[in-house]
């Protein structure tokens, strides 16, 4: 977590694999986030590139950056350059779809479909909004909005009464201070995601405690 101000290292930084903070560094950061949110290991990933990503991805190494992020590399990891080879070695199948038709709200947008060996899937959409900064805008078919500036807990659950109270109760018990908490859903009673950003380190055992409740389908933690 960090206070909201323009830091010296927003100006002198980020340290990153070139050539573009939006097309390379931001792309790696989106895929890295997607990988953290996915429960377990993806066996197959399909990246759909839109807008400027679709137009100039090759010369910016956007494809390598996305694969690198999916392999858990941060934007300054030189293995991004050889990400295609690294993915082959890791047994991760990747596929790229170039969509120059569909208009997205932001020109640098990527959709990421992840599938695990056991068949479970997750779709994440992200935008690279400049200077390496990113925003996650969709999980499956649900609109979301968060950016990983904080340690974050992402809870997938049924939309039903008592969920928010249960989650805040768990966090209060562990003395974790909530910076923000938002619930996203499409329709009453269907799937929902609650995104909790915290000021504190999130202990792993929170995952089990939250998962224990009926109606909660996934708990993923992005630790800063």
């Amino acid at each position, binding site marked *: 977590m960090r206070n909201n101000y323009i830091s*010296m290292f927003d*100006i002198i930084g980020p340290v990153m694999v*070139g050539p*573009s903070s939006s097309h390379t560094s931001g792309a790696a950061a989106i895929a890295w986030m997607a990988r953290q949110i996915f429960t377990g290991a993806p066996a197959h990933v399909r990246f759909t590139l839109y807008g400027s990503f679709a137009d100039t991805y090759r*010369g910016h190494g956007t494809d390598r950056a996305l694969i690198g992020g999916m392999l858990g590399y941060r934007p300054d990891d030189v293995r*991004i350059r050889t990400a295609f080879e690294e993915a082959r070695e890791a047994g991760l199948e990747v596929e790229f779809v170039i969509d120059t038709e569909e208009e997205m709200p932001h020109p640098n947008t990527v959709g990421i479909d992840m599938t695990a060996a056991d068949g479970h899937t997750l779709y994440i959409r992200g935008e690279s909004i400049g200077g390496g900064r990113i925003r996650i805008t969709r999980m499956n078919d649900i609109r979301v909005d968060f950016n990983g500036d904080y340690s974050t807990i992402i809870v997938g659950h049924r939309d039903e009464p008592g969920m928010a109270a249960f989650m805040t109760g768990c966090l209060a018990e562990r003395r974790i201070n909530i910076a923000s908490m938002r619930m996203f859903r499409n329709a009453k009673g269907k799937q929902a995601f609650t995104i909790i950003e915290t000021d504190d380190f999130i202990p792993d055992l929170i995952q089990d405690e939250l998962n224990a409740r009926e109606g909660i389908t996934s708990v993923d933690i992005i630790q800063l």
Partner: protein
Amino acid sequence: MNWDFRTAEELLKLCAYKYMDISDIMLAREMQLGELEKEEIMEEIDRCLRVMNVAVDKAISEPAPSMGGFLGGEAQKLNGLEDSKQICGTVVHNALINALAVAETNASMGVIVAAPTAGAAGVLPAVLLSVYQNCDISMDTLRKGLINASAIGYLLTRNGSVSGAEAGCQAEVGSASAMAASALVEMLGGTPQQCCDAAAIALSNLLGLVCDPVRGLVEVPCQTRNTIGAAGAFTAAELAMAGVTVHISLDEMIRITYDVGRSLPESLRETAKGGCAVACNVCPGAMHVAPTK
């Protein structure tokens, strides 16, 4: 004490009030707002300087072709220029090599420090490392130079723009040039006012510079633009330290640059639809690269 200055004017007031350099004020601000220890900040500054150093050395010793195929080996070429033809003098000559080198490292997916952006990442290492190599400058002064540059970059980000898509290359290489000019002045013992004057001169000298990357890639003309950003920083610093009158303040120059940037046609703001980007005959050496669209 509130260290969070918002304008160059406020920054200069703090400097005068505290008898401090711009880098001291910026450091105090970072410690206050980031709740950080000085050592933590210095560790990160040193990491950035190390990355800059490697980014320069690598492109000179082992040049790699860029992703788009336009760049590779330019820094090495300039490094091999015979002495009698080095018309810029040693300090600027080395700076030009460094600028080319970082642009090559960036374009070949090497590790760089975006400062303030990846496209303009060559300017600061060009100027700072050349001065460190060729002048009698301590490591500590080098660190102060980088921190000083970040103060100017912060003002540009806060009150203007450092995005080529928003305000053209003047917002990227122009900003980097202003940052480097100010850093140079502090490193060579000039006053905070002279730092801001140098930054204002550098900005005004590159006012209107458009962002027109061939094929939308950070290669042509970005690489050589980094050299003019660096050379422009030396020019501006020297004028400011000599006390040449600066008629437009840094705060106003930042606003003007932003206004000019926003009034540039979209074709000249990183869309690859105007300027050099629409040249009919670009470097045949790059023809093996498949068009991206």
